[in-house]
């Protein structure tokens, strides 16, 4: 385990470069370039605001913000894991040519996603102020929640990245799975609309705890429910270790499979 960390540390320059490249190439050759990182969530917010304040009126105060503050973390999770399904295959040119710790790829892509999330939150803060939703001391818990989401996302990414190399169907299955997962998580609806008898099952979904934590911090301005987060943290670490072990085992065959 220690030797693995040491090796990753030795390859830190590659990791940094991959993160940078991931962030930069995303909008490469477009007119606004890196600005899209901000424009993208901004435009999404504009659409939600228009739709939910004129066409489909919701019975929730400041519904666009209610949605927006948890949609951003969801997009981080969904995009990163979806990207992970094609990560090894699309990097076949380096996988087949050089040795490097393969974990760098999911690690860099998840980090880039986290950076993106952080930048999107800057837009969210401005928007919250515009909607006159106060930013409170609870913001102090935001980095913690983001780090927990990072750990969970990294674990899932490692897992799907490795498995997709051997079963390419996972890439498509994952898309459907993410859609189902999206609606099983209280993102567009508040948790309390779910019928009481299903509520406890809903909490089997780790993303519920996470979503509620984000909403507590940003929308309601209160500290999240820490015992719940503790359970989530334990589970995330388990997912990370499991994902890593699977990845490590399968990575030896990557060069021959892609």
């Amino acid at each position, binding site marked *: 385990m220690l030797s693995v960390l040491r090796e990753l540390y030795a390859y830190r320059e590659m990791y*940094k*470069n991959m993160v940078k490249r991931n962030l930069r190439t995303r909008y490469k050759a477009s007119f606004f370039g890196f600005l899209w990182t901000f424009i993208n969530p901004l435009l999404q917010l504009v659409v939600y605001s228009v739709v939910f304040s004129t066409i489909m009126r919701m019975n929730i105060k400041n519904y666009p913000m209610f949605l927006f503050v948890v949609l951003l973390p969801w997009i981080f999770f969904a995009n990163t894991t979806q990207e992970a399904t094609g990560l090894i295959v699309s990097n076949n040119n380096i996988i087949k040519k050089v*040795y490097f710790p393969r974990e760098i790829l999911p690690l860099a892509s998840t980090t880039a996603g986290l950076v993106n999330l952080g930048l999107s939150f800057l837009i969210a803060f401005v928007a919250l102020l515009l909607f006159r939703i106060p930013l409170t001391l609870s913001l102090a818990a935001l980095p913690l929640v983001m780090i927990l989401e990072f750990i969970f996302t990294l674990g899932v990414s490692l897992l799907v990245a490795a498995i997709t190399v051997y079963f390419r169907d996972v890439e498509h299955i994952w898309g459907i799975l993410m859609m189902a997962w999206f609606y099983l998580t209280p993102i567009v609806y508040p948790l309390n609309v779910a019928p009481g008898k299903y509520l406890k099952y809903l909490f089997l979904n780790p993303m519920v705890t996470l979503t509620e934590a984000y909403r507590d911090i940003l929308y309601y301005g209160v500290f999240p429910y820490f015992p719940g987060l503790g359970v989530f943290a334990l589970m995330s670490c388990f997912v990370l270790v499991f994902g890593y072990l699977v990845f490590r085992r399968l990575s030896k065959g990557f060069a021959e499979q892609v």
Partner: protein
Amino acid sequence: MDCVIEAADVWKMFRLYHDRAPTLKEQVLFSHRRKYDELWVLKGVDLKVEKGRTLGLIGQNGSGKSTFLKLLTRIIYPDRGNVKIKGKVSSLLELGAGFHPDFSGLENIYMNAAIFGLTKKEIDRRLEEIIDFSELEEFIDSPVRTYSSGMYMRLAFSIAINVDPDILLVDEILAVGDEGFQKKCFNKMKSFKSQGATIVIVSHSLGQLEMLCDELAWLHEGVLLEQGVPADVIGKYRTEVFAAEDRRAETKSRLQAEHVREEATPDPERNSLDDPEEGDIPIEITPPKRRGNGSVEITGVAFMDRSGRGKTRFESGEPCVIEMRCHKHKPVDNLVFGIAIYRNDDLWCYGTNTLIDRQPTDVQIMGDGIVVRVNIAKLNLVEGEYYLNVACSDGLATEYDYLVRCLDFTVYSQIKDVGVCRLEHRWEISGLNDRGAAVAAER
């Protein structure tokens, strides 16, 4: 001794898929059906390389040497056994890994060197050297997609060779850039060697290997046959490879001779021997192109050394004999035998016939039994691949039998002179210093 590379009983298998479709559905539904053949490329290779040594890997195509090199890079892993490596490995197997066409040469240097495991500080320190070596100073800020393929390779090579690895893996000493650049690469490798780096090279160029390597390993069909001093291993390898080639060629020429002989009485209108031989001959031979009216038929051709042993590999300058056996079907007025040697790119190197050489050919007997021999005192062709045409005609317009490319042969040489043939020569240079003159006199 301190071994930096240790391969212990390494086995590697590749799957040759008949029809590769590894979707989940097929994996589940047809899991019992094997859709591939197993091909064992390495069968228990044990190999150690000590620190600072240069090892050359030789072997024919498909012997597993490139696979072995890939195992050393840790891109692929053995199915059985294990490979232990100590130190930083850089390979010149696949260059330009991870180059991004939209980024500048400079940015790509940082990216590519980082993939080799260098830190920013280490890259900064080597940056100047890398750019210098690549000779791309003016273009280093342009995107790599604007580079020519030569520039691209030069940049990639400069990075790979300047990461100062402990172990350098090389597949075929590279044909990158012009002669000057190649020389630079060669020198760089030598300086590596003197700095105590370990190098493993795969190559078919035995001469280069002999110059660079401390030891050679010979792989044959996935098994390590020999490891030792270059001269010894090369000697054994040459003997074996040439013997195998001669065996193959002998079978082929025998089959060709039989083929010619077994032809039924020639049809005067015949232009070529199109139909391939039926029967249980396992090797498919393309019959030589053939023309002529068949009054005299060439039934067999052989290329031999002086002792009469059939050969298809000759050392430049070696004595040899070309033998033709003919069958005279009809009486003819004039009979002229001829030979012609072509290089494999169809350059006509030499040709002669009995008419040119004023050699009498009044053969009285009919039927089988005419043997024509051309004794060549010195086969002064330079190294290369050649083929032979033979013919007999009336010396004017009528061809009795003309065989195009009836035999292929190879000429090899220690002397790497160029052109078509070797002219007997001697150098004389005036104004040499005494020692030079003494050396010249000794020769």
